[in-house]
């Protein structure tokens, strides 16, 4: 039984971090109707930035976020201004966005391989190996810290989207881009900031990922596959859906690991996704509902 509780708890804690990374992806999709395939490598870039600050400047990995989050925000804005803005509204927009962000991902992957080589690395801090007891088993501090930080940021993101003037504009854009432009919303600015925010969360996600896993650039493929599955399962563009789907995915993966074996964990989840989509093609919190709120 302990193994099951353990799996559920770890699943929820890591699920919070994935929810944050997936929120960025789903927000970018909702506002710009593009799929950002580069989100996986951006998470890894965030992890490497924290790794570099930690290794060369001996900065605490949570403190390093004060530098990496603004840096990733600016990178997101640069990506939007330089590339994404040039995609026009055509039938092939989604596919072109996939190819364009894949090209960006290839470039970043190449650059990271050049600088950091393809050897696996992981982040270090005192509280990564330290743990405290809950009942019969020990919970590493870093999971709890990362979870709490992710939940706080998710709450902030929720407030930003649903309770600020920027959020009104953002949601208007999600519903109807042209109508939003007609009533005087600066669609270009909102799109730019959305990509900035969507990319900025990868700095936190990357730090948490790097603290709990050994990683190299190849890890980005596994990450983007999981993130895409999460946002499709939750319903494209829905923040709530991304949150629920992340927790569900990680809990199911960890339960599979506990009850069966680690190598089947992602397989079980992919199969469940495919089966779910047979009956509910729009995902858990489908697009229509996600956009209405």
């Amino acid at each position, binding site marked *: 039984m302990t193994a099951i509780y353990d799996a559920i708890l770890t699943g929820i804690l890591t699920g919070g971090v994935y929810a944050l990374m997936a929120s960025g992806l789903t927000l970018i*999709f909702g506002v710009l109707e593009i*799929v950002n395939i580069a989100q996986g490598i951006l998470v890894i870039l965030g992890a490497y930035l924290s790794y570099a600050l930690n290794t060369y400047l001996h900065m605490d990995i949570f403190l390093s976020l004060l530098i990496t989050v603004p840096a990733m925000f600016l990178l997101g804005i640069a990506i939007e201004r330089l*590339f994404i803005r*040039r*995609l*026009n*509204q*055509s*039938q*092939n*927009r*989604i*596919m*072109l966005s*996939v*190819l*364009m962000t*894949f*090209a*960006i*991902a*290839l*470039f*970043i*992957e*190449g*650059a990271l*391989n*050049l600088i950091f080589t*393809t050897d696996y690395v992981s982040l270090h801090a005192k509280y990564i190996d330290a743990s405290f007891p809950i009942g019969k088993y020990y919970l590493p501090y870093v999971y709890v810290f990362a979870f709490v930080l992710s939940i706080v940021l998710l709450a902030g993101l929720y407030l930003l989207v649903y309770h600020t003037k920027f959020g009104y504009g953002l949601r208007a854009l999600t519903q109807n881009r042209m109508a939003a432009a007609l009533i005087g919303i600066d669609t270009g600015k909102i799109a730019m900031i959305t990509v900035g925010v969507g990319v900025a969360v990868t700095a936190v996600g990357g730090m948490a990922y790097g603290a709990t896993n050994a990683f190299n650039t190849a890890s980005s*493929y596994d990450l983007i*596959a999981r993130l*895409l*599955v999460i946002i*499709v399962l939750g319903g*494209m563009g829905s923040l709530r859906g991304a949150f629920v789907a992340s927790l569900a995915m990680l809990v199911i993966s960890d339960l599979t690991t506990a009850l069966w074996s680690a*190598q*089947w964990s*992602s*397989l079980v989840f*992919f*199969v469940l*996704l*495919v089966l779910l*989509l*047979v009956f509910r*093609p*729009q*995902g858990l919190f489908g697009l229509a509902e996600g956009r209405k709120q």
Partner: protein
Amino acid sequence: MKKASMIGLLALLILALVFPLLVDTTTTGIAVFTLLYATAVTGWNLFSGYTGYISLGYASFTGIGAYTMALICDHWQIPGDYRTFLLLPVGGLMAVIFALLVGWISLRTRRVTFVVVTLAIMFILESLAFNLSGFTGGSSGIILPSSVWPGNFFNIPFYYVSLFLLVLAIAIAWWIRNSKYGLGLLAIREDEDRARGLGVKTVEFKLVAFVISAFLGGMVGAMFTFYNGNVFPDAAFDINIDVSVALMAFLGGIGTLTGPILGTFLLEPLQQYLTIQYGAVSLNLMILGALLLIIIMVLPDGIVTSAWKAWRRRAALRGTASPISSSVPEEETGVLLESSGGESG
């Protein structure tokens, strides 16, 4: 005009036939991959390009073909000679069976969901290939019995079989593009619900195109295995195959007949060259990424489509633009449909 293009085609074919006699082994090797990719991209395009359902899971088909070939050759210890090529359709058929099952599920979804479902299915297969190690050899893969051909001759049979596969793929794509069935597929791309309302059997139409596309993919995958002499899970079910195939089609012009082939002939040799030249210092990914970004921004419609649009604009300026007629070649009608759909969005 018609005669001139026939002569041109014949000249191209003759050039393709004598090509391996003129160049060295390395170049023939690159040519084999280019021809195989061109076949795969044509196969991808005749489903995704014609119906507008963008698949990022073409490696599922090539991977299944690859494993079918490897398992058969390994189980019966079939050495690599001319008869081994007869196993290619078996790889294709396995991909077809798989496509029937998967298409039935995945074609209920549309747009982004379809993209992600096809990708997820490929990851399921990769994971199965890793985990069913008793059957697939797991991460150590399967090594095929060695070939009977000496090293300096080895590429030649593969070259001609690949060329045959490409011609077959083009013939199928051409036939679909010029049939009433192909028009139905294009109608699905423009507006699926309206097409169904007009009596197009959308479910069957999509599934048939998906299956034909899978057959070509399965044969290409079997060729990859036979040529490489081995198969590994991460190489057979590689996300880079998924994306490369889509990229090459887009570069040339999605939904056209010549576009995917042109796109492959430009991109695949370039990719091979960059890997050989800069792969050791991992500069190849940066150069490739930067080049692709430039291409996507400069030619978002692909080469063939952009060229056709530019030509039409010039013709319109001179006042000689011809009205659409049934004699307009396939590329041109494809572009007209595409541009009318694109500008309304």
